[in-house]
C-alpha cells in the first residue's frame, strides 16, 4: 500500500507570556516540534505498513528548518519525506496550503491512503485535511478513532461524531484525519534517529510544482487577518486566603450564600 502523511511543524508552546517587569510579550525560547496530532497519523501509517507492506511518505510545507521534523518522521518508520519550501508559499491560508500539498501529491503520484492529524495546535482550524481531500478529488472521513480493517480497495473505520461513534466503510484512494485516541506514537530508537539523520529529504519549490503564483502564498489566500488585540478581562475577583482547610471552609460559606452546594 502506498501511504502518504501530511505533517506540520508547529511552535512547542502557544503561551504568550508577559514579562513581569516590562509587560511585553516574551518571544524567545520557542522550540519547534512535530504537530502532536500528526505524530498519531505517522504512527498509524507505520503500523498499517507493518501489517500490509508498502511505503510511507511524509509531506510538509514549511520553512527549510522543517526538514528536522521530516527526519523525525523517518526516524519512527517513514520511508521518505518531501519538503515543500519556497518564499512563494509564505502567508498561505488553509486553502492555499491545501492546494500546494495537492500539487505535490499529484506530482509524486497518487497514494492509496492519505493520513492527516485532525488539526494543528497553532491554527486549530482542522481545515487542511478536508480541503486537501477536495483538491485531490478523494473522499474523506474526519475524526477517525480507529482504522479497523484495510485492504487494497477500502477501509473500515470507527469515527467519532457529535452523537457518538459510528462504523463506516470508505473506498480507496481516500483521506482520513485521525484523533489522538487512535494509537500511542512510538519514540524512535537510536538506530531510527540515525536513519533519519542520514536520509535524503526531497525539496520541492513552487516552480517544481508548476504552481501559479496566484494559487499559493498570500496571493493564493482568500482570507486576510486585519487586526489583532488582547482580550480584556473585567471580573472582580475575591481572593480566599488561609491554609487549605480554612480556604475550603470560607469557600463553602461563600457558595452556600448562593444556594446549597455541598
Amino acid at each position: 500500500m502506498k501511504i502518504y502523511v501530511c505533517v506540520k511543524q508547529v511552535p512547542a508552546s502557544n503561551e504568550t507570556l508577559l514579562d513581569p517587569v516590562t509587560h511585553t510579550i516574551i518571544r524567545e525560547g520557542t522550540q519547534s516540534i512535530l504537530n502532536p496530532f500528526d505524530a498519531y497519523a505517522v504512527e498509524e501509517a507505520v503500523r498499517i505498513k507493518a501489517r500490509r507492506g508498502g511505503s510511507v511518505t511524509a509531506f510538509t510545507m514549511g520553512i527549510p528548518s522543517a526538514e528536522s521534523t521530516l527526519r523525525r518522521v523517518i526516524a519512527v518508520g517513514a520511508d521518505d519525506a518531501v519538503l515543500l519550501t519556497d518564499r512563494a508559499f509564505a502567508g498561505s491560508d488553509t486553502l492555499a496550503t491545501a492546494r500546494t500539498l495537492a500539487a505535490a501529491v499529484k506530482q509524486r503520484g497518487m497514494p492509496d491512503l492519505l493520513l492527516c492529524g485532525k488539526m494543528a495546535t497553532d491554527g486549530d482550524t482542522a481545515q487542511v485535511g478536508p480541503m486537501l481531500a477536495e483538491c485531490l478529488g478523494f473522499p474523506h472521513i474526519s475524526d477517525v478513532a480507529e482504522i479497523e480493517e484495510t485492504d487494497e480497495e477500502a477501509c473500515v473505520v470507527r469515527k467519532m461524531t457529535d452523537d457518538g461513534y459510528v462504523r463506516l466503510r470508505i473506498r480507496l484512494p481516500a483521506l482520513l484525519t485521525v484523533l489522538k485516541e487512535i494509537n500511542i506514537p512510538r519514540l524512535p530508537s537510536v538506530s531510527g534517529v540515525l536513519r533519519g539523520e542520514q536520509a535524503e529529504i526531497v525539496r520541492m519549490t513552487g516552480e517544481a510544482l508548476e504552481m501559479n503564483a496566484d494559487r499559493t502564498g498570500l496571493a493564493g489566500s482568500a482570507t486576510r487577518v486585519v487586526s489583532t488585540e488582547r482580550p480584556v478581562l473585567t471580573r472582580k475577583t475575591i481572593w480566599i486566603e488561609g491554609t487549605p482547610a480554612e480556604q475550603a471552609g470560607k469557600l463553602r460559606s461563600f457558595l452556600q450564600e448562593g444556594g446549597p452546594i455541598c
Partner: protein
Amino acid sequence: MLNGIETGGVWVYSEQGAAGIRPVTYELLGQAARLAHAMKRPVTAVMIGRDNDQAASLAACGADQVLLAEIPDEVLPDELAHTMVLTELTRKYQPAILLMGATGFGRSLAPRLAARLETGLTADCTGLEIDPKTGLLRQTRPAFGGNLLATIVCPEKTPQMATVRPKVFPKPVPDESRPVRIIRERIESTDRCFEFIERIPAAEETDIGTAGVLISIGQGIGGTENIAMAEELARRMGGVLSSSRPLVDSGVMPYARQVGQTGKTVTPKLYLALGISGAIQHMAGVAAKTIVAVNTDPDAPIFGYADYALRCDCGEFLRAMLEKN
C-alpha cells in the same frame, strides 16, 4: 432575485443531528438576522433532507425563507453529498455569507465546500460583524492559543464562510408569528464519502454540556490520586468531572469531557477549576454563573476570570473539601 431569493443574502446551514435540527443552527440564525439587517438583505436557512415540519422552527428564529434541498434519506450526513448540494445552491443563488455550526460534521463539511468554491473560511468565530465601510463580514477568533483575538476578512471571494461553535451565541427567542416560506429544490447528490455500516452504542452517557456543576481539572491537578478525589467531590456536589485540553491530549481524560474552544462549551451554575491555567482557548468554552479557581501559581490567567480565587495546592484543597462530610 431568483425564486424569490435575493442574491447577496446571509445563509445559515441547518444541520440535522440524531435528535433533529442541532441547536447551534438557531444560535446562528440569531446572528444572521443581525448581520442581514445591517446588510439590508434576507436570511435564508438551508436544509438538506426531508422537511419533517422543521421549517417553521427555523422561520421562528430568524429565517426569512427556508431553502429545502430534498435528497434521499441519509442515516448520517455525508460530506461529499452535502458539498455537491450546497455548491449547486450557492452557485445558483449567490449568497454573500454562509454560516455553519462548528460541530464535528460542520468542521468537516465547511472546509471541503470552501475548497470546492475556492472561497475563504474562518473557523470557530467568537465574533461576527459587518464592516460599515466595506460591507464585508469581520470574523473574530482567538489566535496564539487564545492569548490574542484576530479579526479576519475574506475580501474577494464569495460566499464569505464562517463556522461558529455551539453555545458561543445565545438562542434567539422564537417568534411563532413569523411567516414560513419554503423554496424546494431537488438536487442530484450522487457523490458519497462513505458507506454507513452501523452506530456504536456509547459507553459514556455523561454530557458536560448540560451539567449544572462542573469540577474541571487541568494540568496542575497533581496526579491520579487527586483526580480520584476530584471525581469524589464532583459526586458529592451533584456535579460532573470535566477537563482542560492537556489532560485529554495525554489520554488521562476522554475527549467528551474536554471544555474549551476545541472541546465543549459549558454553561454550569458553578465551574470549579482545579489546576487549570486559564488560557483563553479554554475559557472561551466556559460560560458559568460562578467561577472558582484553585491554582498554586498566583499569575495564572484563570484568576482574572474567577469570582473566587484560591492560591492553593489542588491536592490539599481537595482533601480539605472532602474532609467535611
